[in-house]
């Protein structure tokens, strides 16, 4: 009989973790939230800082991807102009489900200081938003906290395909 190195009576017992499908899937999803690089204005600089070494988004498994098809979360970082509105909708549609949207900063939340003809007054007029981050621009810590809250939100939901569709229309 082969001598195992694992001692079943110690180290918490069997090398087996019992869990549910929901938990294991959500564990994977919430710890690998790949974000779409979507810096539209100065908030984009804070988003880049969050991804760089000082704040280090890689610790959360959040890696910026340049393609919506590889991304789970869209961080709308900056002013959304009316000319650009159709493209944010197209990029959002190109992301695979499940997908989440973080609206970062005053401009993306409400149009912010740009109370003008050319600015969309909140990107939630175009796409459904999961998380609004206040600030002009929000510090990288705010975005980190936002990603943590998003992780919590993902863990709280069912992992099955029967997710409630988040559509504006």
């Amino acid at each position, binding site marked *: 009989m082969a001598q195992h190195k694992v001692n079943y009576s110690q180290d918490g017992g069997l090398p087996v973790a019992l869990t549910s499908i929901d938990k294991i899937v959500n564990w994977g999803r919430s710890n690998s939230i790949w974000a779409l690089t979507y810096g539209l204005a100065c908030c984009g600089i804070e988003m880049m800082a969050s991804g760089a070494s000082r704040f280090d988004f890689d610790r959360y498994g959040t890696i910026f991807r340049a393609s919506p098809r590889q991304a789970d979360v869209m961080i709308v970082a900056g002013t959304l102009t009316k000319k650009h*509105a*159709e493209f944010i909708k197209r990029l959002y549609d190109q992301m695979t489900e499940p997908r989440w949207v973080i609206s970062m900063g005053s401009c993306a939340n409400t149009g912010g200081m740009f109370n003008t*003809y*050319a600015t969309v007054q909140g990107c939630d007029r175009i796409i459904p938003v999961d998380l609004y981050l206040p600030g002009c621009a929000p510090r990288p810590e705010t975005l980190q906290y936002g990603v943590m809250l998003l992780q*919590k939100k993902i863990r709280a939901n069912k992992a099955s395909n029967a997710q409630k569709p988040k559509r504006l*229309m």
Partner: protein
Amino acid sequence: MRAYTPKDDVQAKAYYTDRYYVAPQVPKQEVESDEIFAADLAALKEKFDVKEAFIQMKQMIVYINASDIYGVLEFLRDELTYTQLSEMSAIDWLAKDNTFEIFYQMLSMTKRKRLRIKFFINNGDAVDSVESLFRSADWSEREMFDMFGIEANNHPFMKRILLPYDWQGNPLLKTYPLEGDEFAAWYEVDKIYGKEARDVIGPEIRDTARVDRYDSERFARLGFEVPKGTKITGNEEPNKQDYQEEGGVFLVKKFTKDASKIIDDPQR
């Protein structure tokens, strides 16, 4: 678009009642006070019709006929060394006398002088393009077309430059409301979802100071979040926001400060 109404004193009336108030103007000097400008103006007057000329803020302003603009700028560039067109655009005087004032800001590097060529055109008239003289006029004339609707004849690509091609209206006109007309207000909704979506999405909220704690559709009160659409009564339970759930997270260790090691030696 709103109709033109005389706005001579509408906004200022509430703030002063001085009937003899005259808006301060930048003082004008004679062109003869600067010999370089005087020589330039004399050379210009020999070939073209100059309506008015003076010096303001050390820059000469010359009013010419609209039809002369190409010849004047060519003459300035080739003969008088004004080799750069810094800027050109229009000023809306439609409310006053239904005209636009077009200006061309010129710079001479050798003379270290700036001069401004100006003329008036009627509403609906086009200007002659100077794009073949100055490449910088390419985008400037397109922007003028975008913002005022003034076309430039002989321009190679007379299209909007900043706003989308299907935009209606010219935002730098004084009649254009800052927050946009109805077309602008619904532009993105109409384009993406269609007109029938207007009722679903609703009008833009332009009041920046608007705070409605009973509105659970848009923003939540921090610490008292409720699901979207819930009717808020004001007796909501506090909702403690923590990084992690109470019972911990599957396969993720909870951070405990006591178990972590703090490096107090900066040199280490």
